[in-house]
Protein backbone atom coordinates (compact mmCIF):
# COMPACT_ATOMS: atom_id res chain seq x y z
CA UNK A 1 0.00 0.00 0.00
CA UNK A 2 2.81 2.35 0.91
CA UNK A 3 4.56 1.48 -2.30
CA UNK A 4 1.49 2.44 -4.29
CA UNK A 5 1.23 5.76 -2.44
CA UNK A 6 4.92 6.41 -3.01
CA UNK A 7 4.51 5.61 -6.70
CA UNK A 8 1.58 8.00 -7.07
CA UNK A 9 3.50 10.74 -5.26
CA UNK A 10 6.52 10.17 -7.48
CA UNK A 11 4.33 10.34 -10.57
CA UNK A 12 2.90 13.71 -9.52
CA UNK A 13 6.34 15.10 -8.72
CA UNK A 14 7.71 13.97 -12.09
CA UNK A 15 4.70 15.42 -13.89
CA UNK A 16 5.16 18.70 -12.07
CA UNK A 17 8.84 18.82 -12.94
CA UNK A 18 8.24 17.91 -16.57
CA UNK A 19 5.57 20.54 -17.11
CA UNK A 20 6.62 23.39 -14.84
CA UNK A 21 10.39 23.49 -15.41
CA UNK A 22 10.23 23.92 -19.21
CA UNK A 23 7.57 26.58 -18.71
CA UNK A 24 9.86 28.53 -16.37
CA UNK A 25 12.79 28.18 -18.75
CA UNK A 26 10.65 29.34 -21.64
CA UNK A 27 9.35 32.43 -19.83
CA UNK A 28 12.33 34.63 -20.58
CA UNK A 29 12.43 33.33 -24.15
CA UNK A 30 8.80 34.33 -24.62
CA UNK A 31 9.48 37.72 -23.05
CA UNK A 32 12.50 38.18 -25.30
CA UNK A 33 10.47 37.40 -28.41
CA UNK A 34 7.82 39.86 -27.29
CA UNK A 35 10.50 42.49 -26.69
CA UNK A 36 11.90 41.97 -30.19
CA UNK A 37 8.42 42.27 -31.66
CA UNK A 38 7.68 45.48 -29.77
CA UNK A 39 11.04 46.90 -30.87
CA UNK A 40 10.16 46.14 -34.47
CA UNK A 41 6.77 47.83 -34.19
CA UNK A 42 8.41 50.81 -32.49
CA UNK A 43 10.82 51.24 -35.40
CA UNK A 44 7.92 51.23 -37.86
CA UNK A 45 5.94 53.76 -35.85
CA UNK A 46 8.98 55.96 -35.34
CA UNK A 47 9.60 56.01 -39.11
CA UNK A 48 5.96 56.90 -39.73
CA UNK A 49 6.26 59.66 -37.12
CA UNK A 50 9.36 61.08 -38.80
CA UNK A 51 7.70 61.20 -42.21
CA UNK A 52 4.64 62.88 -40.76
CA UNK A 53 6.77 65.33 -38.82
CA UNK A 54 8.72 66.30 -41.94
CA UNK A 55 5.47 66.99 -43.78
CA UNK A 56 4.16 69.03 -40.90
CA UNK A 57 7.35 71.08 -40.63
CA UNK A 58 7.30 71.62 -44.38
CA UNK A 59 3.67 72.52 -45.02
CA UNK A 60 2.37 73.48 -41.56
CA UNK A 61 -1.16 72.60 -42.63
CA UNK A 62 -3.94 71.57 -40.29
CA UNK A 63 -4.12 68.15 -41.90
CA UNK A 64 -0.43 67.57 -41.46
CA UNK A 65 -0.67 68.81 -37.87
CA UNK A 66 -3.50 66.39 -37.11
CA UNK A 67 -1.51 63.62 -38.72
CA UNK A 68 1.66 64.37 -36.82
CA UNK A 69 -0.22 64.50 -33.51
CA UNK A 70 -1.73 61.09 -34.24
CA UNK A 71 1.59 59.62 -35.34
CA UNK A 72 3.42 61.07 -32.35
CA UNK A 73 0.84 59.64 -29.98
CA UNK A 74 1.20 56.22 -31.59
CA UNK A 75 4.97 56.41 -31.44
CA UNK A 76 5.04 57.51 -27.79
CA UNK A 77 2.57 54.83 -26.84
CA UNK A 78 4.67 52.20 -28.60
CA UNK A 79 7.84 53.51 -26.93
CA UNK A 80 6.18 52.98 -23.59
CA UNK A 81 5.15 49.48 -24.61
CA UNK A 82 8.69 48.70 -25.71
CA UNK A 83 10.11 49.78 -22.38
CA UNK A 84 7.53 47.74 -20.53
CA UNK A 85 8.37 44.70 -22.64
CA UNK A 86 12.03 45.18 -21.77
CA UNK A 87 11.23 45.47 -18.06
CA UNK A 88 9.16 42.29 -18.29
CA UNK A 89 12.13 40.55 -19.90
CA UNK A 90 14.35 41.74 -17.05
CA UNK A 91 11.85 40.45 -14.53
CA UNK A 92 11.84 37.00 -16.16
CA UNK A 93 15.62 36.96 -16.26
CA UNK A 94 15.72 37.78 -12.57
CA UNK A 95 13.42 34.85 -11.88
CA UNK A 96 15.73 32.57 -13.87
CA UNK A 97 18.87 33.64 -12.05
CA UNK A 98 19.09 31.62 -8.84
CA UNK A 99 22.57 32.98 -8.17
CA UNK A 100 21.04 36.27 -7.05
CA UNK A 101 20.62 36.73 -3.33
CA UNK A 102 17.12 37.27 -2.00
CA UNK A 103 17.78 40.92 -1.18
CA UNK A 104 19.24 41.61 -4.63
CA UNK A 105 16.31 39.96 -6.33
CA UNK A 106 13.82 41.91 -4.21
CA UNK A 107 15.62 45.18 -4.86
CA UNK A 108 15.71 44.67 -8.61
CA UNK A 109 12.08 43.58 -8.71
CA UNK A 110 11.22 46.76 -6.83
CA UNK A 111 13.08 48.82 -9.43
CA UNK A 112 11.04 47.15 -12.14
CA UNK A 113 7.81 47.72 -10.28
CA UNK A 114 8.60 51.44 -9.87
CA UNK A 115 9.46 51.86 -13.53
CA UNK A 116 6.36 50.02 -14.68
CA UNK A 117 4.29 52.33 -12.49
CA UNK A 118 5.99 55.34 -14.08
CA UNK A 119 5.31 54.03 -17.57
CA UNK A 120 1.64 53.43 -16.74
CA UNK A 121 1.31 57.04 -15.64
CA UNK A 122 3.13 58.16 -18.76
CA UNK A 123 0.75 56.16 -20.92
CA UNK A 124 -2.16 58.16 -19.53
CA UNK A 125 -0.42 61.37 -20.53
CA UNK A 126 0.35 60.00 -23.96
CA UNK A 127 -3.24 58.94 -24.54
CA UNK A 128 -4.44 62.45 -23.71
CA UNK A 129 -2.12 64.13 -26.23
CA UNK A 130 -4.18 66.54 -28.38
CA UNK A 131 -1.52 68.89 -29.67
CA UNK A 132 2.13 69.07 -30.55
CA UNK A 133 2.79 70.76 -27.22
CA UNK A 134 1.04 67.95 -25.37
CA UNK A 135 3.20 65.47 -27.24
CA UNK A 136 6.32 67.36 -26.33
CA UNK A 137 5.29 67.47 -22.68
CA UNK A 138 4.56 63.76 -22.61
CA UNK A 139 7.88 62.98 -24.26
CA UNK A 140 9.62 65.41 -21.92
CA UNK A 141 8.38 63.42 -18.94
CA UNK A 142 10.16 60.35 -20.22
CA UNK A 143 13.28 62.34 -21.14
CA UNK A 144 13.49 63.73 -17.61
CA UNK A 145 13.05 60.33 -16.05
CA UNK A 146 15.04 58.32 -18.56
CA UNK A 147 18.39 58.56 -16.74
CA UNK A 148 16.83 56.96 -13.65
CA UNK A 149 15.05 54.34 -15.75
CA UNK A 150 18.25 53.52 -17.66
CA UNK A 151 20.22 53.37 -14.40
CA UNK A 152 17.76 50.86 -13.00
CA UNK A 153 17.91 48.75 -16.15
CA UNK A 154 21.74 48.81 -16.19
CA UNK A 155 21.89 47.95 -12.51
CA UNK A 156 19.69 44.92 -13.10
CA UNK A 157 21.61 43.60 -16.12
CA UNK A 158 24.96 44.12 -14.42
CA UNK A 159 23.59 42.65 -11.21
CA UNK A 160 22.63 39.47 -13.05
CA UNK A 161 26.13 39.20 -14.51
CA UNK A 162 27.67 39.85 -11.13
CA UNK A 163 25.56 37.13 -9.51
CA UNK A 164 26.62 34.59 -12.13
CA UNK A 165 30.28 35.48 -11.69
CA UNK A 166 29.94 35.31 -7.92
CA UNK A 167 28.50 31.81 -8.27
CA UNK A 168 31.53 30.79 -10.33
CA UNK A 169 33.68 32.24 -7.57
CA UNK A 170 31.87 30.04 -5.04
CA UNK A 171 32.65 27.00 -7.19
CA UNK A 172 36.26 28.13 -7.28
CA UNK A 173 36.31 28.28 -3.47
CA UNK A 174 35.00 24.70 -3.34
CA UNK A 175 37.72 23.63 -5.72
CA UNK A 176 40.24 25.23 -3.42
CA UNK A 177 38.98 23.14 -0.51
CA UNK A 178 39.32 20.00 -2.62
CA UNK A 179 42.82 21.06 -3.67
CA UNK A 180 43.81 21.50 -0.01
CA UNK A 181 42.54 17.99 0.76
CA UNK A 182 44.49 16.63 -2.18
CA UNK A 183 47.73 18.18 -1.00
CA UNK A 184 47.21 16.80 2.50
CA UNK A 185 46.55 13.31 1.16
CA UNK A 186 49.53 13.27 -1.18
CA UNK A 187 51.94 14.93 1.26
CA UNK A 188 53.38 11.69 2.77
CA UNK A 189 54.42 10.51 -0.69
CA UNK A 190 56.23 13.73 -1.61
CA UNK A 191 59.70 14.97 -0.87
CA UNK A 192 60.10 17.96 1.42
CA UNK A 193 60.90 20.19 -1.53
CA UNK A 194 57.78 19.18 -3.37
CA UNK A 195 55.66 19.62 -0.27
CA UNK A 196 56.97 23.17 0.03
CA UNK A 197 56.26 23.80 -3.65
CA UNK A 198 52.72 22.48 -3.32
CA UNK A 199 52.07 24.73 -0.33
CA UNK A 200 53.47 27.73 -2.16
CA UNK A 201 51.28 26.99 -5.20
CA UNK A 202 48.23 26.66 -3.00
CA UNK A 203 49.09 30.07 -1.57
CA UNK A 204 49.01 31.52 -5.07
CA UNK A 205 45.65 29.87 -5.72
CA UNK A 206 44.32 31.32 -2.50
CA UNK A 207 45.66 34.77 -3.40
CA UNK A 208 43.70 34.67 -6.63
CA UNK A 209 40.52 34.05 -4.70
CA UNK A 210 41.26 36.95 -2.36
CA UNK A 211 41.88 39.30 -5.29
CA UNK A 212 38.74 38.03 -7.01
CA UNK A 213 36.63 38.71 -3.92
CA UNK A 214 38.08 42.20 -3.57
CA UNK A 215 37.20 42.96 -7.17
CA UNK A 216 33.75 41.52 -6.65
CA UNK A 217 33.19 43.87 -3.70
CA UNK A 218 34.28 46.82 -5.78
CA UNK A 219 31.89 45.83 -8.56
CA UNK A 220 29.01 45.41 -6.12
CA UNK A 221 29.57 48.92 -4.81
CA UNK A 222 29.90 50.33 -8.31
CA UNK A 223 26.63 48.74 -9.39
CA UNK A 224 24.69 49.89 -6.36
CA UNK A 225 25.91 53.45 -6.89
CA UNK A 226 25.22 53.41 -10.62
CA UNK A 227 23.10 56.49 -10.93
CA UNK A 228 23.62 59.37 -13.23
CA UNK A 229 21.77 62.32 -14.70
CA UNK A 230 23.28 61.94 -18.14
CA UNK A 231 23.20 58.96 -20.46
CA UNK A 232 26.79 59.56 -21.59
CA UNK A 233 28.07 59.37 -18.05
CA UNK A 234 25.93 56.30 -17.45
CA UNK A 235 27.40 54.60 -20.50
CA UNK A 236 30.94 55.36 -19.32
CA UNK A 237 30.25 53.96 -15.84
CA UNK A 238 28.59 50.86 -17.30
CA UNK A 239 31.59 50.26 -19.52
CA UNK A 240 33.90 50.62 -16.55
CA UNK A 241 31.93 48.04 -14.54
CA UNK A 242 32.05 45.62 -17.47
CA UNK A 243 35.81 45.98 -17.55
CA UNK A 244 35.95 45.23 -13.83
CA UNK A 245 33.83 42.13 -14.39
CA UNK A 246 36.22 40.96 -17.09
CA UNK A 247 39.17 41.54 -14.75
CA UNK A 248 37.57 39.49 -12.01
CA UNK A 249 36.81 36.76 -14.53
CA UNK A 250 40.48 36.66 -15.58
CA UNK A 251 41.50 36.23 -11.92
CA UNK A 252 39.33 33.12 -11.76
CA UNK A 253 40.74 31.85 -15.06
CA UNK A 254 44.31 32.21 -13.81
CA UNK A 255 43.48 30.64 -10.46
CA UNK A 256 41.92 27.65 -12.18
CA UNK A 257 45.00 27.21 -14.37
CA UNK A 258 47.05 27.13 -11.16
CA UNK A 259 44.76 24.44 -9.74
CA UNK A 260 45.24 22.39 -12.91
CA UNK A 261 49.01 22.68 -12.51
CA UNK A 262 48.71 21.58 -8.92
CA UNK A 263 46.65 18.55 -9.93
CA UNK A 264 49.29 17.54 -12.46
CA UNK A 265 52.03 17.97 -9.90
CA UNK A 266 50.19 15.79 -7.39
CA UNK A 267 49.65 13.07 -9.93
CA UNK A 268 53.18 11.63 -9.76
CA UNK A 269 55.49 10.74 -6.93
CA UNK A 270 58.64 12.16 -8.50
Amino acid at each position, binding site marked *: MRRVQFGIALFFVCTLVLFVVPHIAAS*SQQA*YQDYLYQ*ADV*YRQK*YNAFQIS*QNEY*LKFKTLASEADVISK*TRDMLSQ*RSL*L*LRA*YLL*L*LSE*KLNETPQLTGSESDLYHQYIKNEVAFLETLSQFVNSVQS*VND*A*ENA*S*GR*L*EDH*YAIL*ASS*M*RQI*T*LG*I*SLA*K*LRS*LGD*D*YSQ*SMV*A*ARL*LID*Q*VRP*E*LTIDRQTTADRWFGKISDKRTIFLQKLDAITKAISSLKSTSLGDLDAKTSDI*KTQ*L*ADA*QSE*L*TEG*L*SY*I*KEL*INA*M*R*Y*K*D
Partner: protein
Amino acid sequence: MEETPKPFSPEIPSPPVPTEPPSVPQVAQSQIPGIPQQPAKEHEALKTFAGIPLPPMVEKLLPLILAVVAIFFGILIFAVVQKFIEKPEPKPVTIIVTPTPSPTPVHIFTTVATTSAFMAFESNVASLSGKVEAFQNEDPSLTTPSLVLPLGFPNDR
Protein backbone atom coordinates in the same frame (compact mmCIF):
# COMPACT_ATOMS: atom_id res chain seq x y z
CA MET B 1 84.45 -65.01 -100.97
CA GLU B 2 85.97 -62.43 -98.90
CA GLU B 3 86.04 -58.80 -99.86
CA THR B 4 89.33 -57.14 -99.77
CA PRO B 5 89.36 -54.19 -97.38
CA LYS B 6 89.43 -50.85 -99.02
CA PRO B 7 92.22 -48.52 -98.10
CA PHE B 8 91.23 -45.80 -95.54
CA SER B 9 91.72 -42.95 -97.91
CA PRO B 10 89.31 -40.73 -99.80
CA GLU B 11 88.67 -41.76 -103.25
CA ILE B 12 90.14 -39.43 -105.76
CA PRO B 13 87.73 -39.05 -108.63
CA SER B 14 89.19 -39.75 -112.04
CA PRO B 15 89.43 -36.73 -114.36
CA PRO B 16 86.51 -36.35 -116.72
CA VAL B 17 86.94 -37.71 -120.13
CA PRO B 18 86.33 -35.10 -122.85
CA THR B 19 83.50 -36.08 -125.12
CA GLU B 20 84.41 -33.61 -127.79
CA PRO B 21 87.77 -32.44 -128.88
CA PRO B 22 88.57 -28.94 -127.74
CA SER B 23 88.33 -27.36 -131.06
CA VAL B 24 87.47 -23.95 -129.69
CA PRO B 25 89.63 -22.76 -126.93
CA GLN B 26 87.50 -22.13 -123.85
CA VAL B 27 88.00 -18.95 -121.92
CA ALA B 28 88.38 -19.44 -118.17
CA GLN B 29 85.58 -17.95 -116.08
CA SER B 30 88.01 -16.11 -113.94
CA GLN B 31 89.22 -14.27 -116.85
CA ILE B 32 85.77 -12.75 -117.73
CA PRO B 33 85.95 -9.07 -116.98
CA GLY B 34 83.11 -7.20 -115.15
CA ILE B 35 81.79 -10.18 -113.24
CA PRO B 36 82.78 -10.43 -109.56
CA GLN B 37 84.48 -13.65 -108.88
CA GLN B 38 84.21 -15.65 -105.68
CA PRO B 39 87.57 -16.00 -104.11
CA ALA B 40 88.62 -19.53 -104.36
CA LYS B 41 90.56 -19.54 -101.08
CA GLU B 42 87.56 -18.40 -98.90
CA HIS B 43 85.33 -20.96 -100.50
CA GLU B 44 87.99 -23.44 -99.66
CA ALA B 45 88.14 -22.22 -96.01
CA LEU B 46 84.40 -22.82 -95.54
CA LYS B 47 84.72 -26.32 -96.63
CA THR B 48 87.60 -27.11 -94.30
CA PHE B 49 88.17 -26.38 -90.65
CA ALA B 50 91.81 -26.34 -89.53
CA GLY B 51 92.70 -28.17 -92.59
CA ILE B 52 90.14 -30.86 -92.00
CA PRO B 53 87.44 -31.00 -94.61
CA LEU B 54 83.93 -30.58 -93.16
CA PRO B 55 81.12 -32.93 -93.90
CA PRO B 56 78.38 -31.45 -96.11
CA MET B 57 75.85 -31.35 -93.20
CA VAL B 58 78.20 -29.31 -91.03
CA GLU B 59 79.04 -27.20 -93.98
CA LYS B 60 75.39 -26.28 -94.38
CA LEU B 61 74.98 -25.44 -90.68
CA LEU B 62 78.26 -23.59 -90.40
CA PRO B 63 76.75 -20.03 -90.68
CA LEU B 64 74.20 -20.88 -88.03
CA ILE B 65 76.88 -22.29 -85.73
CA LEU B 66 79.02 -19.22 -86.28
CA ALA B 67 76.03 -16.97 -85.48
CA VAL B 68 75.29 -18.87 -82.26
CA VAL B 69 78.94 -18.65 -81.27
CA ALA B 70 78.95 -14.93 -82.03
CA ILE B 71 75.83 -14.37 -79.92
CA PHE B 72 77.34 -16.42 -77.09
CA PHE B 73 80.51 -14.36 -77.12
CA GLY B 74 78.48 -11.17 -77.33
CA ILE B 75 76.50 -12.14 -74.23
CA LEU B 76 79.69 -13.14 -72.47
CA ILE B 77 81.37 -9.81 -73.23
CA PHE B 78 78.21 -7.91 -72.20
CA ALA B 79 78.07 -9.79 -68.88
CA VAL B 80 81.74 -9.09 -68.18
CA VAL B 81 81.40 -5.38 -69.01
CA GLN B 82 78.21 -5.12 -66.97
CA LYS B 83 79.96 -6.65 -64.01
CA PHE B 84 82.66 -4.03 -64.15
CA ILE B 85 80.17 -1.15 -64.60
CA GLU B 86 77.86 -2.19 -61.80
CA LYS B 87 78.70 -0.74 -58.44
CA PRO B 88 79.23 -3.25 -55.77
CA GLU B 89 76.28 -3.39 -53.38
CA PRO B 90 77.00 -1.80 -50.02
CA LYS B 91 77.48 -4.16 -47.27
CA PRO B 92 74.60 -4.26 -44.81
CA VAL B 93 75.28 -1.89 -41.95
CA THR B 94 74.87 -3.47 -38.62
CA ILE B 95 73.39 -0.98 -36.16
CA ILE B 96 74.51 -1.39 -32.69
CA VAL B 97 71.66 -0.34 -30.43
CA THR B 98 72.89 1.44 -27.42
CA PRO B 99 70.47 2.31 -24.64
CA THR B 100 69.79 6.07 -24.53
CA PRO B 101 68.00 7.98 -21.79
CA SER B 102 64.28 8.59 -22.62
CA PRO B 103 63.10 12.25 -22.75
CA THR B 104 59.95 11.28 -20.90
CA PRO B 105 61.06 9.33 -17.94
CA VAL B 106 58.68 6.88 -16.38
CA HIS B 107 56.75 8.44 -13.54
CA ILE B 108 55.11 6.61 -10.77
CA PHE B 109 51.56 7.60 -9.86
CA THR B 110 50.77 8.69 -6.35
CA THR B 111 48.22 6.57 -4.55
CA VAL B 112 45.71 9.43 -4.60
CA ALA B 113 46.01 9.94 -8.36
CA THR B 114 44.29 6.66 -9.12
CA THR B 115 41.30 7.27 -6.87
CA SER B 116 37.90 8.18 -8.26
CA ALA B 117 37.81 11.29 -6.06
CA PHE B 118 40.94 12.62 -7.71
CA MET B 119 39.51 12.03 -11.18
CA ALA B 120 36.20 13.62 -10.20
CA PHE B 121 38.05 16.65 -8.84
CA GLU B 122 40.05 16.98 -12.05
CA SER B 123 36.85 16.74 -14.08
CA ASN B 124 35.13 19.35 -11.91
CA VAL B 125 38.00 21.78 -12.33
CA ALA B 126 37.94 21.31 -16.10
CA SER B 127 34.18 21.87 -16.13
CA LEU B 128 34.45 25.00 -13.99
CA SER B 129 37.24 26.29 -16.18
CA GLY B 130 34.96 25.91 -19.21
CA LYS B 131 32.16 27.79 -17.45
CA VAL B 132 34.46 30.64 -16.47
CA GLU B 133 35.77 30.88 -20.03
CA ALA B 134 32.21 30.97 -21.37
CA PHE B 135 31.10 33.66 -18.93
CA GLN B 136 29.89 36.83 -20.62
CA ASN B 137 29.86 40.02 -18.62
CA GLU B 138 26.71 41.08 -20.45
CA ASP B 139 23.78 38.95 -21.55
CA PRO B 140 23.36 39.73 -25.27
CA SER B 141 19.58 39.34 -25.00
CA LEU B 142 19.46 42.11 -22.40
CA THR B 143 20.74 44.91 -24.59
CA THR B 144 18.86 48.03 -23.60
CA PRO B 145 16.57 49.51 -26.25
CA SER B 146 18.03 52.37 -28.22
CA LEU B 147 15.59 55.26 -28.25
CA VAL B 148 15.67 58.74 -29.75
CA LEU B 149 14.03 60.68 -26.98
CA PRO B 150 13.69 64.30 -28.19
CA LEU B 151 10.87 64.56 -30.69
CA GLY B 152 12.69 67.11 -32.82
CA PHE B 153 10.08 69.83 -33.17
CA PRO B 154 11.52 73.35 -33.55
CA ASN B 155 10.18 74.53 -30.21
CA ASP B 156 11.46 71.37 -28.54
CA ARG B 157 12.93 71.81 -25.12
